């Protein structure tokens, strides 16, 4: 049961965290100036948004869950399961960020999912 909660946290909190950071950056607006001072200014502006802090908090939760589950399960089992993040990410992008995901992009995401699983099944 604990394992299920950990996996749930890794996939949902991890992807949720990245979606929140993504939302914060969409609110910050498109970065056009890449000089170091301008980039620092963008980061400071992003840090004023609540989505950025929620995102980083969720990502930390996912990281600690990953450490916890790695202490009881094999890496070769854990990582293919976390490939589910790609599906969660696509769904989150569609429903939370209002992105339009074409059939072509869904096909690519499915292939990435299969590939990530094979990479970790192929561990020596």
């Amino acid at each position, binding site marked *: 049961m604990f394992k299920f909660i950990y996996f749930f946290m890794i996939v949902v909190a991890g992807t949720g965290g990245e979606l929140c950071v993504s939302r914060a950056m969409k609110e910050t*607006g498109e970065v056009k100036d890449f000089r170091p001072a301008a980039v620092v200014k963008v980061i400071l502006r992003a840090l004023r948004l609540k989505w950025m802090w929620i995102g980083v908090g969720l990502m930390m939760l996912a990281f600690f869950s990953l450490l916890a589950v790695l202490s009881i399960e094999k890496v070769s089992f854990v990582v293919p399961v976390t490939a589910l993040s*790609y599906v969660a990410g696509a769904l989150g*992008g569609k429903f939370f960020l209002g*992105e339009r995901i074409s059939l072509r992009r869904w096909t*690519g995401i499915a292939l990435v999912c299969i590939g990530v699983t094979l990479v970790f099944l192929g*561990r020596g």
Partner: protein
Amino acid sequence: MESHKRLQFKTFVMILIMIIAGPLGNVLLGKGMKNVGTITIASSSDLAHVVGRVLASTFVWLGVASLLTFFIANILVLSWADYSFVQPASSLAYGVVALLSVFLLGESVSPLRWTGIAIISLGVLIVGRTNPRTTEHC
């Protein structure tokens, strides 16, 4: 369209930085932590000793700098590109990790793993042919 090309170019550059800096950071951190050795903490002085050893490792600092570069490139690209575009595209990092382990650390990579990397690359290629941005910006 000129602005579409510009958008694709800067997306490409940022994802390139991500898929190099991310895996490089992990490999450097891994190497640094292996040099630090097995961590056993029995008292607070042990903890201070371990923290001291970790902070004294050049590899750890290089790894942290590399991961910080990855994080900044990641948030910058997310300011204009779709998350559902960036997330699968940056999975090319799995291939870069395999290459770094072969050439930098001398590890062996199984055929099944190379197959997986080939399928990821194909998936990324397909995602890469979609428009990086499908939402309107305010």
